[in-house]
């Protein structure tokens, strides 16, 4: 665990990736919770942040035996991830000094949160992403164009995920989401459109050369590409989308523009991801399932973050990260979603129709 490469030289073979997925899906979440709690709160080898916090919790976290009891920790204060050394959240069982990459969240509402990803965490994310590629019908050994944020943003590690785990060859174009968000916050949509145009020209330059099979980008950028260069989109074998909002209309427009090409999706951020499942109801229902068991999601009530809504109900997305090397319980996301239950075929809840969070009202009495 001493090396933390963003690009892993020795990726596991396909069979090993598939075995890992099977193993994770068969994991009992309560048992997994106990494992992660024991690691982070081990008096000698736990994570410095959690050992410090344990003193003020008012309960002994080592007494927690079930996943549902994680609500006792309360919502995770994201300010910790903005101000503290990310190593403080990594158990001392991971040899010091830590070497490797710090990854940032987008920084939509202020300074970004920063996380240290150990190689195991990067592998976990990548193996799930590979699972998505396979289940969505992407073929290994193809040429990709990655047009996403890179630099401090974990989505940029998709270059390795494709090349290292899916034998792909990857071209890349960088985008700066914080600049776009700054323009949007200021209502400077004309300048934001100009930046988009700048990105589209770079995209077109790569795609024009031919030979690119798949594109990995955001829905917003792909939408702009569909409108400006429909012929380039029509020549793709597929696109993989994550990072900004995707509406049913966009999804249908994209699949039409792709002329039978694949339209894969994922939802998430630097904390954790969820894989897109096939759309239902002609695209009106777009479900996702989290990268279990290290990532779980719940859809909770707007007036009580500890209570999940009924299946099909709308609420705030609550994310819990249960990596061996990172424990983040009860992150209240700035997103709302429908609670999606896949029945007996998936060990955890999923989310569907994700949108920016607004104040929830579940009371129909307000309708008129």
């Amino acid at each position: 665990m001493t090396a933390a490469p963003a690009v892993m030289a020795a990726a596991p073979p396909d069979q090993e990736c598939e075995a890992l997925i099977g193993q994770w899906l068969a994991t009992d979440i309560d048992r997994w919770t106990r494992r992660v709690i024991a690691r982070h709160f081990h008096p000698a080898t736990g994570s410095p942040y959690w050992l410090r916090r344990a003193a003020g919790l008012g309960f002994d976290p080592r007494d927690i035996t079930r996943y549902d009891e994680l609500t006792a920790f309360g919502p995770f204060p994201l300010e910790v991830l903005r101000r503290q050394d990310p190593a403080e959240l990594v158990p001392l069982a991971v040899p010091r000094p830590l070497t490797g990459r710090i990854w940032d969240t987008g920084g939509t509402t202020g300074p970004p949160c920063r996380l240290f990803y150990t190689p195991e965490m990067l592998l976990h994310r990548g193996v799930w992403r590979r699972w998505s590629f396979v289940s969505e019908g992407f073929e290994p050994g193809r040429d990709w164009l990655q047009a996403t944020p890179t630099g401090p943003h974990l989505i940029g590690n998709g270059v390795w995920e494709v090349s290292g785990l899916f034998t792909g060859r990857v071209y890349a174009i960088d985008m700066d989401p914080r600049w776009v968000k700054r323009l949007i916050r200021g209502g400077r949509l004309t300048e934001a459109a100009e930046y988009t145009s700048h990105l589209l020209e770079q995209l077109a330059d790569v795609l024009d050369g031919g030979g690119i099979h798949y594109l990995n980008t955001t829905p917003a950028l792909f939408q702009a590409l569909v409108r400006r260069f429909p012929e380039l989109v029509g020549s793709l074998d597929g696109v993989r989308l994550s990072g900004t909002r995707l509406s049913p209309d966009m999804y249908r427009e994209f699949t039409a523009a792709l002329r039978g090409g694949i339209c894969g999706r994922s939802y998430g951020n630097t904390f954790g991801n969820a894989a897109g499942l096939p759309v239902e109801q002609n695209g009106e229902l777009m479900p996702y399932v989290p990268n279990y068991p290290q990532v779980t999601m719940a859809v909770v009530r707007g007036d009580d973050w500890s209570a999940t809504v009924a299946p099909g109900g709308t609420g705030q997305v609550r994310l819990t990260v249960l990596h061996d090397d990172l424990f983040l319980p009860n992150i209240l996301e700035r997103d709302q979603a429908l609670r999606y239950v896949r029945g007996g075929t998936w060990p955890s809840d999923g989310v569907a129709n994700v949108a920016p969070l607004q104040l929830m009202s579940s009371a129909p009495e307000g309708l008129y």
Partner: protein
Amino acid sequence: MALGFLFGGGVGTELYGLEMYEAHPVMRELYARVSRWTGLAVEQILRDELPGTPEERQSAATIRESALALGVHDVLVERGLRPGVLGGLSLGAMTASCLAGAIGRRELFEMLAYARHTPRLPPEEPEQGLALAFAPADGGNAGFPGEGRPGVHLSGDFGPTADGELRILMLSGERTALDALEGELPPGSLVPLPDRTIAVHSPLRRHFRAFMASRIAAIPFSDPRVPLVSCLERKALTTGAEVRDLFARNPTDPISLVDVCAGMKERGVRLALVIGGSIPNGLLRFPFPVVHVDKPEHIQQVFASVYDLGIDLVPARAS
């Protein structure tokens, strides 16, 4: 890829939009004008307890709702966010008509203020009420709970719930008939709306429609300058006469959010801004993404959604 503005119907039971009023001078200026037009103090329009009789209270509440809706619209327009298509339910349809240029602002508010003089019904008239009914979404044209029963009327169709499982309908009628119906249906499938004593959008509002008829007939209506959809049937309102007809029929005819949304969708809406508290967030399924706007911070969400969804903004008209 148009931006739609969608205005809720009815009158809210909770105060909202106060932060918008405090934050934006353009809203405060509007409220001052509305105060002069209606004779209500700004504080009454904004947040004070609503007055006396049901009709007085209803009138003041509609003024409060429309002032807020127009104010939020003005704030958005100030930031370059103009409606490409307008729609609304009931009172929201009237607000939308006003923003489409079919009726002047002063005329709208004076009409709403005039409604406070609606004669009271004789005391022997049955007590009225409202209820929401929850029916299976795949029920097709199976009718509505209580259909054919005396004193129960279908007054609104809010369409499917967010998960697509149920359809929400509004029933208006005599309180005793609605209560009796609730007792016969499975628990939770009919929810009476507390403190709603006016059987809106039903034949029980004939006297109000008759009272307002001459007033509405005297108002000059113009052809809408922005695409405007009806809430009484699935169509666009393209002439002043059609808008006048909507105003005249609105008290007694059932409303349909399904028709409003379908009409907006047909006219290219791919993002709608929901203005007004009576379309709760997260409860209903819309055929396009929606952003509810009643707080200053929502404006940034609007900008982000406009960018993310690739919405075409309407340029400012040359002055």
